[in-house]
């Protein structure tokens, strides 16, 4: 059996940043396992710009952003295996992987970082009725076909869901010569970033129909028409509001799901809200020495935040490998309330945490002129005014260790949205 101090599952932005951070914190023996033919993950098909504004203070494309981290991995001579699939992770931290050259093999790791990313919600999971012809793609599959293979999946396009990939693909397909007829969004607000709505839809006169969904797909061989309808507050279609679009393609951008099949088989506790692992302030799961970061933990809007989060996971994994873990440390749960859907991390250990810990979360609906209030037990300790908050944009607060230590008997932290 091979032995490594740290095995990182996934060579996308999360895995790369975690590897660099772990090495910089003194871990020599690191292996990144990547299932695709190159490092960089899904960034390699995100050829649009807008990446790296926070991290590098400049605007990069996805592949350029990935290249910055790939270079750092190369400079540090961190080991990686490409075209290699992790088949299983055991709770004893034995990773079983497979590729063409090595066959199936096992690695015993002292620590593991989960960085497998996420996948798109499929048509089937959305229960859209109608025929099942060719021409229905997830936005990410279409993005791969157009940006990496150079093929157009269709000419006249309806997009369901206003997630960022769908918005980006509306512009991309338009630039490549297709006609994007409409973007329909089930919710009364977009799931994507404001800037993407402006730059990808408004600038190209592509209509966005909020509170609309697909109610029928026609076409026995290839999509021939898609019908959308308005939905009421219960999200059920309102009869009589149907609009039919003749088209050959339906792209779906209806949400991303963290890919946690491996985590589940290892016994990692998952959140029913994020579908990602439940972690503490060091981004460690319920299994000692197994950490998670990036979109496998919860779906992010910006890769910059993925990189930041992954660096934290890498540093903490290094610390775990070098110093072990104080298993007696008290953990305080963060309770999301009043519009806050979840928090990552869910547990804070005041004695073990870094000087500051960033807590990220999403809200459940659109809030205007509200504030994010953090309570230590019943005491409000932190208020942050936000003119607008929406589910499509991740929010954060920063917890300060010094402040936490002023509450030695703390039993819970509550984060909620309140009127300002």
């Amino acid at each position, binding site marked *: 059996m091979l032995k490594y101090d740290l095995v990182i599952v996934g060579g996308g932005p999360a895995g790369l940043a975690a590897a660099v951070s772990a090495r910089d914190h003194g871990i020599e023996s690191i292996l990144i396992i990547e*299932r695709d033919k190159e490092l960089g993950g899904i960034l390699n098909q995100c050829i649009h710009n807008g990446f790296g504004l926070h991290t590098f203070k400049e605007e990069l494309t996805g592949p350029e952003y990935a290249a910055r981290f790939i270079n750092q991995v190369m400079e540090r001579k961190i080991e990686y295996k490409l*075209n290699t*699939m992790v*088949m299983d992770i055991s709770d004893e931290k034995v990773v079983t992987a*497979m*590729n*063409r*050259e*090595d*066959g*199936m093999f096992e690695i015993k790791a002292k620590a593991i970082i989960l960085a497998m990313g996420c*996948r*798109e919600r*499929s*048509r*089937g*999971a959305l*229960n859209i*009725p*109608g*025929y*099942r*012809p*060719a*021409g229905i*793609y*997830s936005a*990410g*599959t279409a993005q*791969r*076909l*157009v940006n*990496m*293979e*150079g*093929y*157009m*999946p*269709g*000419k006249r396009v309806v997009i369901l869901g206003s997630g960022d990939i769908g918005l980006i693909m509306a512009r991309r397909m338009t630039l*490549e*010569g*297709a006609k994007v007829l409409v973007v329909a969004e089930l919710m009364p607000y977009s799931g994507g970033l404001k800037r993407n709505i402006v730059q990808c839809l408004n600038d190209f006169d592509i209509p966005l129909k909020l509170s609309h969904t697909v*109610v*029928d*797909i026609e076409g*026995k*061989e*290839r999509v021939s028409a898609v019908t959308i309808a308005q939905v009421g507050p219960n999200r059920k*279609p309102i009869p009589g509001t149907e609009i039919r679009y003749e088209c*050959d393609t339906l792209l779906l951008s209806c949400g991303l799901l963290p890919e946690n*099949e491996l985590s*589940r088989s290892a016994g990692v506790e998952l959140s029913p809200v994020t579908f990602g692992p439940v972690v503490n302030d060091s981004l460690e799961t319920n299994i000692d020495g197994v950490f998670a970061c990036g979109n496998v933990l919860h779906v992010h809007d910006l890769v910059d935040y993925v990189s930041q989060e992954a660096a934290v996971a890498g540093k903490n994994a290094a610390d775990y490998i070098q110093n072990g873990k104080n298993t007696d440390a008290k953990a305080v749960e963060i309770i999301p309330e009043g519009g806050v859907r979840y928090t990552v991390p869910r547990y804070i250990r005041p004695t073990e945490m870094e000087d500051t810990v960033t807590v990220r979360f999403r809200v459940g609906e659109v809030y205007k002129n509200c504030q994010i209030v953090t309570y230590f037990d019943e005491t409000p300790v932190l208020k942050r005014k936000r003119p607008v908050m929406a589910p499509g944009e991740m929010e954060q607060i920063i917890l300060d260790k010094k402040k936490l230590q002023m509450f030695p008997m703390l039993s819970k932290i509550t984060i909620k949205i309140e009127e300002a």
Partner: protein
Amino acid sequence: MMYDVAIIGAGVVGSAIARELSKYELSACVLEREEDVCCGTSKANSAIVHAGFDATPGTWKAKLNVRGNEMMEQLSKELDFPFVRNGSLVVRTKDQDISGLEELMKKGKENGVPGLRIIERKELLKMEPNLAEDVVDALYAPTGAIVCPFHLNIALAENACENGVEFLLNTEVTSIKKAAEDYELTILKKPVGAAAVAGKEPEQESIRAKVVVNAAGVYADVFNNMVSEEKLAITARKGEYMLLDKTAGNHVSHTIFQLPGKMGKGVLVTPTVHGNLLVGPTAIDVEDKEGINTTADGLSFLSEASARSVKNVPFRQVITSFAGLRAHEEKNDFVLGEAKGAEGFFNAAGIESPGLTSAPAIGQILAEQIANKLSLVKKENFKATRKGILRPETLSMEERNRLIKEQPAYGNIICRCEMITEGEILDAIHRPLGARSLDGVKRRTRAGMGRCQSGFCSPRTMEILEREVPMSIYDITKNGGKSSFVVGVNKGI
């Protein structure tokens, strides 16, 4: 072309007949309008091997169900397809009378179904902890089973093909004429992919056959009525289903039927042989014999109706939904044998539930009748077994590594949800009647059948088809005809 036998339809029935006939010295062909075998009713059903208590005693359905059930296990070994005898339960709720269950048991005994017994709730809950609160008892049929309908159909067809039956795919029969000694069939050879998209017309040809077998599913009435004086009337009866992720596959272990009642025939909840959970079907008669669309009403009905027998079905785990069409003949039984006034024209018509179960028995009966008709003699070199696509997950790590050393493609995962390797996809393409479409690969290997529903693997599978067949990327379809996946290159439209 002149054949002894021409079979219309490469579904499970046509393929079972073809396989049985391939035991004899003859020239036979199967004419299939789709681009692959198993494309109609055979691909979209409950995937159940029924025990046989449901059909009216004395009917073909009753006889062949029980016989088909008996044959299936042995056949699954000979032809290497997944089959699990998981047992079935017909559950009764407290608002229903016990006489319904007793009636079923009585019919079952008459039909020769072994081991039937009624089980009370207490014992039932040990077998199935997720049964609904209102369930009081159930009829247990230990011979009830589940099967992979794709693999059953494909295995029969592959084995027939290996034993010399010719399969003409993308070939639609448009007319059948009786001649003095034989039949003349007009066929259309349908274009696939780019040619179909560009509007190329199908090419018309004709073939002759001494015997024609009508296994045309929902269209069997059309062909029968071209030659026979005894007309058939087949209605397409739609059944919608929802398939749940493998994480929900253990929700029940038996096939759970509902006792028919004033709420209708009820829906079943069953594990599949691959470990998913299947809920369905609806039963709605439709005009359109191509109407395999799902409906909002149908899908919401399934989630409501299933709750009568099984609680807490995790519908958030649905990965796909689909609909199939049952070929319902108005006399409510299979129509088997030589058609009236049409010597040499044999029907296997009206094959609805329990058609999948009965298919091997139907094949046997029809083949015997045809062999008598044509005085066929048995082949000496009939190859009775067929090896399925190797599933590396069934091997030990040592065996797997030996395999990867010999064939590195088995080390390359293409479908990450179902963990399907390139080696399996190559096998699916290069074996007899190999896959030529994404759905063809999917039915043979399960690549694309998992929770992401081919989002990740479809571009990779396309690349493999393009390289291995080889074929143009524009000819790669989801399922033949105009179902191309890409329509041009960037800026090329």
